């Protein structure tokens, strides 16, 4: 299994698409590692700079994250930057599946919970860790620490534990 804990980057926008996560001009790369410097290069968000990504391990964002192109380069660009978890109100289907297929987390939380996280933590130094077995997020700042449960299907949980879909499919089909 990958590591699912660390500092949080809040991206306060809905519909962040895969062209923003990794622009198409970098799809000519044939290794995942080559994508590393270009993550979120074209993100359309006031005040955001790619230097904000430094030492971050978790992204918290709004609705429909990862819409658009099917490129798995988007999860890979996250993965090579050691970001293995995105927490959002909702995801585009292909991006979400790609995350679990890579053994990474795309965690959906209700709008009220996402609003609450932004309101209480967006401007603070925060870390999150995911407990895979209990399906819970532990969020910690200087002042507080709390647990938030999330829903995850058995299939998605299995993919995270097995490290992705290729290994599972090879064993079972």
């Amino acid at each position: 299994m990958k590591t699912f804990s660390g500092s949080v980057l809040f991206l306060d926008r809905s519909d962040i698409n895969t062209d923003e996560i990794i622009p198409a001009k970098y799809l000519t790369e044939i290794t995942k590692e080559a994508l590393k410097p270009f993550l979120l290069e074209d993100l359309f968000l006031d005040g955001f700079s790619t230097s904000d990504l430094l030492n971050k391990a978790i992204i918290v964002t709004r609705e429909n994250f990862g819409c658009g192109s099917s490129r798995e380069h988007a999860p890979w660009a996250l993965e090579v930057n050691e970001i293995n978890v995105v927490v959002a109100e909702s995801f585009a289907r292909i991006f979400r599946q790609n995350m679990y297929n890579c053994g990474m987390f795309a965690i959906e939380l209700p709008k009220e919970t996402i609003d609450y996280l932004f309101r209480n933590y967006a401007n603070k130094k925060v870390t999150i860790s995911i407990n895979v077995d209990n399906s819970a997020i532990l969020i910690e700042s200087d002042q507080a620490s709390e647990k938030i449960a999330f829903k995850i299907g058995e299939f998605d949980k299995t993919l995270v534990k097995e490290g992705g879909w290729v290994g599972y499919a090879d064993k079972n089909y």
Partner: protein
Amino acid sequence: MGKTIAEKIFDAHRVDEPFPDAHVLRLDRVFCHEITTPIAITDLIERGMDRVFDPTKIKAVIDHVTPAKDSKTAEQEKILRDWSRRHGIKDFFDVGRNGVCHAIFPEKGFVRPGFTIIMGDSHTCTHGAFGAFAAGTGTTDLEVGILKGVCAFHFPKTIKMIITGELKPGVYAKDLILFIIKELTVNGATNMVIEFTGPVVDAMSMESRMTLCNMAIEAGGTCGICYPDMTTVDYLWDHIKDEFSSKEDALSEYSKWVSDFDAEYEQIYEFDISDLEPMVTFGYKPDQVKTVAEMHGTKVDQIYIGSCTNGRIEDLRIAASILKDKKISVAVRAIVSPASPDVYGKALKEGIIEIFHEAGFCVTNPTCGACLGMSNGVLADGEVCAATTNRNFNGRMGKGGTVHLMSPATAAATAIAGTITNSNLFKASIGEKK
């Protein structure tokens, strides 16, 4: 309770249901292109599993950047080419014989009603126009598809669109799908199949149905689906005539791939589109849609006619009918990319290429290039493109560029005027083809 077409296709292909949220389906087709396939191939090699489940069910094409523009794209193409040869994948379309995947694969007869299809390309939803379940996937799903011939999906909840009325002259499938995306929003169909039904869809050509299904993903949809009918059979006939004694026979076989009258839907929409106007996007999301009239006069720098949405022969015919004997504005440049060699060939024979050439268009080889800002028409910072493509994301056609999505008719009129313009200003009766 009856079943939807997608549920029937799932039932006919399900090989496993290991968890309630995973339906593992047997695949009839795995389509591959040179951008998302090479990493799957190199990963399979690294794992010591350089095999394919069935070389006759895998189809491959070089389409995103073609001919190769640099060493990196040449390497991607080489990986796909060598792999196709190594595994006896006969349907590999190399430079010169290649076209945009979602145009060339249906033309070759590879898509049939009732099929399951995946590809590492989000616009794979296009092939649902034939009554197939076709979904875009990432490279890992593609890799497993290549290796095992299976893919896992969630249960296919379905939205039904009933489209009634009659499209006005100058209004096309592209205008209709932009209107539908505006209604659904960019995630209104996430995790769902969109069925396009009703007399307007029944009267549409396969090309127009592909335009509709192609953009299902822009509302978040897994797949767009149209029911197979005689139009589907006619389109496929050259490829299926040895399998059936008559077209009626083929139709009766394919007719099992329609939804039952009492099927359960997540949502049903009914639109009378008789008053629908030509539509165009603004902003950076495909659900930001206005009428062309509202956007009239918006300055553009480049016109692009092509892509898996609107680069087929019907699209080129419509654009040419407006461009005939006219020149494009000196304020703009314009590019047309016929979506496949077959489209290119027909356009040559019909004098359409000459019309584009005389009007001042740059005619390129079939490729996806400009649509996603990879080659053949990339925008500079601050430039604006009127495009018949499918995504107006910020930077999609080049960093800092803006894209307005529209029909080929509107794009042709915009090329002449130099600003966003309704095609009816140049031609009074262009409604023969829907």
